[in-house]
């Protein structure tokens, strides 16, 4: 069996050159492409996620690792059979309409990527309709809405409402977060969950995606 330790370590250290070298080495020794991704690349990224959670790594370091991982995945992708899953699911993330706060949302996206989800980051000031379109186009399982202003958190409700109107509400889980958001508010607007921080969001997404798979 191929030893993925060095590849994983290269991801953890965000060392692009080393990731490239190790991925190519694995490809050349005919390792199953999916294993390269899951055990080598995502495996390393999981460690990064854990370390970040206990304050052992800073955000810039995690971002470097994520970039290294993604580069590795791009190298492997051509070898995958069509339709093979390289991720645990797809999360559409964005800051709701009227709100321009970027960082919190990006951190959640980053942590989700660490854990093996595909993340479609729509950016900030996203209208309900844009969320719906993105969910449809990317076959997203989870919509993650962010708001930092007490004046814009009400846009979250509109987004949930539009999902109902557009008939996609049963196909996606909707989660909300941001400084002024509470579990109570999440319940009120009919969201499926609330998380207080990026780590919580990851746990929540895992829980919801598992639930959906079990249906």
């Amino acid at each position, binding site marked *: 069996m191929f030893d993925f330790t060095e590849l994983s370590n290269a991801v953890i250290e965000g060392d692009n050159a080393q990731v490239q070298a190790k991925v190519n080495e694995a490809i050349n020794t005919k390792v199953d492409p999916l294993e390269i991704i899951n055990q080598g690349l995502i495996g390393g990224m999981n460690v990064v996620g854990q370390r970040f959670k206990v304050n052992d790594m*800073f*955000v*810039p370091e995690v971002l470097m690792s994520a970039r290294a991982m993604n580069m590795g995945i791009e190298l492997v992708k051509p070898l995958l059979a069509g339709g093979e899953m390289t991720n645990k699911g797809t999360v559409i993330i964005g800051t709701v309409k009227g709100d321009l706060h970027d*960082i919190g949302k990006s951190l959640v996206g980053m942590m989700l990527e660490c854990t093996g989800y595909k993340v479609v980051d729509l950016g900030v000031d996203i209208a309900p309709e844009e969320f719906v379109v993105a969910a449809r186009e990317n076959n997203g399982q989870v919509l993650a809405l962010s708001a930092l*202003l*007490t*004046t814009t958190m009400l846009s979250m409700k509109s987004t949930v409402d539009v999902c109902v109107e557009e008939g996609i509400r049963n196909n996606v889980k909707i989660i909300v977060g941001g400084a002024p958001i509470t579990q109570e508010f999440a319940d009120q607007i009919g969201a499926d969950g609330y998380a207080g921080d990026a780590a919580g969001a990851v746990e929540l997404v895992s829980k919801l995606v598992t639930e959906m798979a079990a249906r």
Partner: protein
Amino acid sequence: MANIQFTELAYNNADEIIYGYAKKPVVCNNGMVIGGGTVYPEVNLTLPTMLISEETMPKVLAQYDEMIHGICSKAHELHSPGFIIEIELLPPCTFNPQWGKDVTKVVKGVMDEYSTKFGQKSLLRMTVVDVREGKTLAHMYKGEHWDNVINTFKGCAEAGADFLAIESIGGKQLHDEAVMNCDLPKAVFSLGAIGCRDMGILWDEIVKISQEYNCIPSGDTACGFANTSMVMAHKNFIPKVFAAIDRVMCAVRTLVAVERGAVGPDKDCGYEGVYLKAISGTPISMEGKTAACAHSSCVGNISASVADCWSNESVENIRLLGGMAPTVYIEQLIYDCRLMNGATTRGSAKEIRDILIESDKMYDPQAYILDPKVAFRISGEIIKGKTHFERTKIAAAATINEIRAGFKDGLLQLDAKELKYLDIFEKQLKAIPDDEAEFAKQILPMCTVDKFDPAKYDFNVAAK
């Protein structure tokens, strides 16, 4: 239009810098003098979760009315010699300048009522939101966004604001990216090149409006910049030393307001105000422990050591057991100020100041660089720079040196990860060329248009 270049510090030595006194006090029409010996409470308040729309405006105004009544009556009850109210307008009230004006009118109306009835002195700082961002922004200096900002300033000034302020955001998106990646050169560029330039243009307008309506151009803060770093460092997302360096670099940017004619008091959430005061003698508002309602802080006491106004940053109008939160917070601020001013009366202000400094400086580089002695030394370096770009670079370098020295002398605790990043930042900094145009040419290709679009800023590498 003013264009002051500060080439000397306002103080001869660090020991002169103290709370309540500024070299250039701001004398107001009602007799209050900011930086004239008394620290005044500056209470900040905001709406609870609610929709702001044409329809809800009566409710919005009723909320402000209730909050200001509570504050004024508590201040009167507690014999406050004077106080400042800051309203940071919410975005809808800048997108609709008339709403911002209406809020000002209601707030000032209540303040006037207490002034007439009880002689209760107070001043109103209106802080316009810098809405120049988002998908629909066409240009920073013309078009709808710019017009809304300018018209809101005019409306607030006309409706009776005593001070005009803003937390301007030119270059912020790029800076966000710099923070996330701990990319010091990109931070230098966003602050020293883009931010400073943007503030020059913006503050020329604010100063003009202030003159026209006879109110006071107070100041700006690096809220969107160094406070982002501060929050990220507080969550252990980035090294604290980055936040400390970023804070000092921001001083160069925030100072631009004063270069263009702002006179203070500088806004509460700009901890770089300490540098502003050291360099220009402008009085400053600061916030610390009593702003825990808005955010936790590693500078809870030290931030008061040279403050001229003492603020709670922001509190929503929600009910605590003891009353509505804004009323609770003006009470806390008033007692904080009584303590500081009482010490001044007894001649022991310097002792209190030094206790406040020692309280925090050891635990965090962000606190350490607020020690007026440290700020005085770094400020002395900053003013040697000829351009904003150069000053920003000097600020970073001098801060790295001071932090290193503080650690070596046992005055500041830093763990190994922080020390490692000091080295990284030093290296990053040394890689920045001395020539600004050359630097811009290097860095611009690394900036995507969605984070910084030179065209929207009329930004021209060659012209810099």
